């Protein structure tokens, strides 16, 4: 018995060794299957189906037929590398950064770059050029028009590098195993490098998925051309993901990290709805300070429900995965509300939006905005561009950022661009921080703090902050009583997130055309390095 087992191990080792040899030489690759065992029908995976009931009921599970297939497939590709961003005082700051390698048009428009398989697996309309999407958009580098930058003509959201696997297509045996168009995840590394190098964004590309989605996130490490002395790996840590596996948790010490020239696809089933964020976990005090921080949120299945929200949440109790029973699970935050609510917010027709599966409509909003709080230490970023080691103890942030920008750049619509050391102009800071609320509407601010040195406070001048969620969880006690509260300021540490609703439904107090402010009462953070007015501040516009 023991000997047989040993043989198995030897055999396995051999298989592994040969497997490694036989692996395709390609180390850049992407993964975005049109269907999976969880989402078996490809035609249903390119849109969010309505939620009509539990996926599995009772104690059934994989191997049995699900009662309903919920959610869809979502994919995204990002580069890990470097780039430059423009600070509020005009300084160009060096970044270690993630950049978009899919959903380019959406990212340039300030939207999540996450796409369904049919969008992700689409080929580009023309040859991608260095510095794209600018050049592909008919714009010539260095001759940019004024703000906002026009991105309208460029509507392609596919994966950069995607190309037919011609080698496989040429071999009938191999060809039989891949789609007829040859799109099996094979990429042309030239276009990945053309677009990905020096194309870092601050914040890192925005992601958004829906509960029950499978998410394929490919990280492609294009290297850091400004730091040829480094051989930095990168990872993605999906911060706050409940019951994560160590393998996909992105901590290099506890898993694998991706070397330069390689790609790795993180696979997640969307966790419970909430405002999460993500970042590289390699040498966090360095890579986070240098800019490798992004936002991700998960939208609740309640958005896809038609009918009374209370009965929608009751339906979720039929699946043990989505149930919230305080007696058996101390870590669930959305039991059925103690008081069933009435009114228009408490029932959905499949078009209303909510932050959480609240069952009572208390987290309904009209528009949502990610707001990422961060800080840059200009000295650290300068040293980070040189070959000298940086010190951590004396780290002192002097740029205070909302979505990678300081005031007044925070109120510039559209993406910011920065000319980098390759002589090309890149989209560097895609997310404006203007909060546009339709008159009489409600805005959900998905606030995350990624600062690596200190706590930061954000205050609202005008519209009170209605805090409905904290650390990606609905504020509700185990008995179903909502614990939401109103405040004029919130304080977060690096590594925390919070959901605030700005309720402008009183059009007398908040009439169309009015402007309100979000700013930090940490008054020394209202600065851009030596400039003494700027920093962590933005505007709320009632449209």
């Amino acid at each position: 018995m023991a000997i047989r087992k040993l043989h198995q191990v030897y055999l396995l080792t051999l298989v592994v060794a040969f497997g490694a040899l036989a692996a395709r030489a390609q180390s850049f690759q992407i993964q975005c299957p049109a269907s999976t065992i969880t989402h078996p029908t490809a035609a249903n995976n390119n849109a969010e189906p309505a939620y009509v009931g539990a996926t599995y009921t009772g104690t059934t599970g994989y191997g049995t037929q699900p009662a309903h297939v919920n959610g869809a497939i979502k994919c995204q590709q990002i580069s890990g590398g470097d780039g430059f961003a423009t600070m509020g005082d005009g300084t160009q700051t060096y970044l270690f950064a993630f950049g978009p390698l899919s959903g380019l048009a959406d990212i340039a428009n300030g939207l999540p770059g996450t796409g369904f398989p049919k969008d992700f697996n689409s080929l580009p309309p023309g040859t991608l050029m260095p510095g794209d999407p600018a050049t592909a958009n008919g714009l010539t580098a260095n001759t940019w028009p004024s703000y906002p930058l026009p991105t309208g003509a460029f509507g392609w959201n596919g994966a950069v590098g995607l190309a037919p696997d011609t080698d496989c297509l040429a071999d009938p045996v191999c060809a039989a195993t891949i789609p007829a168009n040859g799109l099996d995840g094979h990429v042309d590394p030239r276009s990945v490098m053309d677009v990905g190098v020096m194309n870092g964004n601050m914040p890192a590309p925005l992601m958004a998925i829906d509960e029950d989605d499978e998410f394929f996130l490919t990280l492609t490490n294009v290297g850091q051309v400004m730091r040829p002395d480094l051989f930095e790996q990168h990872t993605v840590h999906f911060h706050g993901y409940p019951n994560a596996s160590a393998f996909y948790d992105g901590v290099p010490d506890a898993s694998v990290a991706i070397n330069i020239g390689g790609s790795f696809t993180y696979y997640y089933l969307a966790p419970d709805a909430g405002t999460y964020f993500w970042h590289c976990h390699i040498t966090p005090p360095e890579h986070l300070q240098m800019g490798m921080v992004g936002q991700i949120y998960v939208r609740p299945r309640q958005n896809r429900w038609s009918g009374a929200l209370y009965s929608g949440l009751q339906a979720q109790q039929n699946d043990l995965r989505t149930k919230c029973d305080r007696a058996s699970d101390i870590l669930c935050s959305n039991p059925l509300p103690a008081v069933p609510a009435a009114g228009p917010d408490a029932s959905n027709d499949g078009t209303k939006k909510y932050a959480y599966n609240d069952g009572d409509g208390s987290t309904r909003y009209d528009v949502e905005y990610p707001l990422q709080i961060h800080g840059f230490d200009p000295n650290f970023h300068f040293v980070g561009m040189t070959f000298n080691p940086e010190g951590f103890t004396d780290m002192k942030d002097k740029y205070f950022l909302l979505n990678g920008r300081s005031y007044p750049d925070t109120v510039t619509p559209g993406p910011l661009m920065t000319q980098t050391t390759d002589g090309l102009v890149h989209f560097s800071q895609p997310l404006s921080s203007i909060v546009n609320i339709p008159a009489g509407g409600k805005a959900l601010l998905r606030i995350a703090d990624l600062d690596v040195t200190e706590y930061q406070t954000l205050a609202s001048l005008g519209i009170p902050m209605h805090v409905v969620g904290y650390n990606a969880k609905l504020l509700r006690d185990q008995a179903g009583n909502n614990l939401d509260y109103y405040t004029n300021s919130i304080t977060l540490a690096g590594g925390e997130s919070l959901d605030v609703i700005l309720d402008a439904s009183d059009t007398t107090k908040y009439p169309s055309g009015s402007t309100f402010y979000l700013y930090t009462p940490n008054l020394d953070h209202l600065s851009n390095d030596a400039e003494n007015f700027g920093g962590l501040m933005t505007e709320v516009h009632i449209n």
Partner: protein
Amino acid sequence: MNPSTKKTTISMTRLLPAVLVVLALLFTRAANAAAPGVTGTAFHLTAKPAFVSQPDGNAVYSWGYSCDSGGSPIPFGAAGTACGGAMQIPGPTLIVTAPASGSATFTVTLTDSLPPAAGNTSILFPGFQVATSGGVAGLLTREAQPGSSVTYTVTVPSTAAGTHSYYSGTQSDLQVEMGLYGAIIVLPSATPPACSSGIHSTNLLAQGAHSETNFRLAPAAYNHPGACYDREYIFQFSEIDPRIHRQAEEQILALGNCVAGTAGCSLSVATEPYVPAYFMVNGRSMPDDMDANYAPEYPHQPYNGNPHMHPGELVLLRIVGQGRWQHPFHEHGNHVRILARDGNLIRSATDPANNLAGPLLFTTTTTPGMAMDGIFYWTGKGLNWDAFGHNTDPNKTGHADCFPDGNGYNTGDPGAINYFEWCQDHNKPVQAAPVGNVASGGPATLPDPNIFANGPWFGGSPYLGPDATVRSVGSTGTTPPSGTIANSPTEEAGFAFMWHSHNEREITTNNIFPGGMLMMMLVDSREFKIDESN
């Protein structure tokens, strides 16, 4: 970054090579933590100086408390040396039990054996009724003079429970910075019936079935059905600004044995600007924090931070802010249900007897002097793939049953490797075409291992536990022979999660990364015996 490897590297200049080899062998397997401390009703503590060890090789002059008598070490029995008279940082964790009715008291007699120039010292017990005797009047409480003592009589009502801090109330900006702080754990007077039924009962059976000893201090943190737990850890967060310590040391050396209270026999240490360089969990910086409790190379830092747990165990975290900064403590792997703040259980307004109202946090911010209790667990629920990499073929190894209980977990057989597996994903593959003996047809294709860099706590495969890991990738895992392995594919292969300060610069030690407030928490399959006996 195997902790032992790191330690040997750093200690190279201080130790003989022959000793090094022995140390490396001794401390590789250290995997224990729990919430060690001393129990009793009349504790005798002495404030005194000593040098604490930092992983960059620095020995930092500090002040701390020693437990001289009156405390029995728990939960480690003879293994602990907690009341052996050695100065320690943090101070001895004082563990007391609330009385069944009325109130009880315990006393702390504090002797000031600090250098005369340091002056008086005292202890504050925030949240407790305290009577004092002896000593001299001070600003906040009665103080012990150099060479003398003061006694505090602390009242513990029957309703008390939870984790609390204690710290110096004399010249606190200097004395707390120097290390005069510690924790008090009050065990509740009664155990709720819920703690001995349901999953708490089967989790205890599972520990027994796998020959594990339970090292929790009590079945519940509070007398409330939501406060039951299966395992526990305490984490105290503090910082050191080495300039302050150096200045104190230099002044004390210069003043020699001056007579306390005479002119000039005092310290004038600037405690601002404050630029800490060491960030500690339980008095140690990473990787030292992951060595054993009472490890001999840290004679003045006996407590470690090295949490382990099995899937489905409810783990009590006792989180205490010491020092003077806030630290956003980020728990990878899941949220934490906050039970209480400073020993005050946070209950639902409408159903306080049964329901909790504390927040669910993935980042638990510590505040100086504040303690919180919270419950964490990890089960892998919702991964959408079988973490145990089970084989669907009944004729192959790795085939197993998963019988869901009412909550969907495999809890029927406490002796099973996959006890507490999330059955909805049982047999569900993650890999499309794995080479090893695990189910195939999953959504993910793993690239050539050559483009990875494997971390030392990587178990060697995507799967949990040695059985699944060896079946999927072989006994060496995918880590090349040159790699460092702190989570052996054949012995542990746990899921490692980093628990750390998310003010990321605090996971450094005097400008060196990694270090500081960082621990690896391991979720271990039942194949790995979690032994917290030291």
